[in-house]
């Protein structure tokens, strides 16, 4: 993935996270050490698009990040957040982030977004993502957001 695309991804995702969840993203240039990878419960959100251009993005939210953006999004207490709401927020995040990205990469609007899907991964290790060519990592106060994407 080239640097221009990475820059547009960062700008677009930051707009979504700051506007909707009051959460700031910081791009990570290098993978963290093994002890900082944040293995455990994650929410995975997947979205693809096709038409004028094609692509697929997978988002991996550590549970704490997923829960906290849901709290900020809905304005509810942390204890009142349900798993379905976290999944729904993750899917909507993927929708907004990639919808926004597509608006910049394909301003003519020939590509169509598919419906985003989300699921909970009970035991996931982001180590499996290291080495993926389309990997982007963003540091947040609730852990690292991992994104793997392809765009053509």
């Amino acid at each position, binding site marked *: 993935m080239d640097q221009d695309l990475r820059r547009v991804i960062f700008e677009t995702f930051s707009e*979504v996270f700051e*506007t909707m969840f009051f959460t700031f993203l910081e791009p990570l240039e290098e993978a963290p050490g093994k002890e900082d990878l944040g293995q455990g419960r994650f929410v995975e959100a997947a979205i693809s698009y096709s038409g004028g251009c094609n692509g697929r993005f997978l988002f991996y939210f550590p549970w704490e990040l997923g829960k906290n953006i849901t709290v900020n999004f809905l304005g509810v207490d942390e204890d009142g957040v349900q798993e379905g709401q976290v999944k729904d927020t993750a899917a909507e995040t993927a929708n907004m982030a*990639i*919808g*926004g990205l*597509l608006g910049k990469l394909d301003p*003519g609007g020939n590509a169509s*977004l598919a*419906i985003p899907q989300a699921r909970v991964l009970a035991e996931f290790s982001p180590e499996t993502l290291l080495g993926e060519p389309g990997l982007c990592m963003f540091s947040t106060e609730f852990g690292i957001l991992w994104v793997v994407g392809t765009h053509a």
Partner: protein
Amino acid sequence: MAFNILVTDDSETMRAVIKKTVSMSGVPVGEFHEACNGKEALAILAETWIDVILSDINMPEMGGMELLKKVSEDEDLRKIPLIFITTEASDARKEEAKKFGVAGYVKKPFQPETIKAILYEVLEKAYAHRLEDQPGEEDAGESDF
């Protein structure tokens, strides 16, 4: 006089956020109705008095653009203003929506002030007489349309 608002989005959390945003905007709301796609929205419109529709575009079964087309083809329903709240904000989508008479267009992610401003603008155009008794609203955002 209050307005009945239909919120159409396949994301339950997004529907909740939109309802909360509208409730806090000061727009007098009678009842909120919710649909998770265009098909459900049409079923509600067939049975319920709705004053304004807030709809996503990218939804399963029937998307927002098809909903807008169906609404625009119906002699009674076409009077109901429809505002898109969507990630799909390309010029081509906006032009298509304009062709079928969309009343407003809000791009996600949105600031609450943007929804408030566009909702008031649309309601004032469609139902000026019903807003006469409401306190005046300052411009609080910009339409993306």
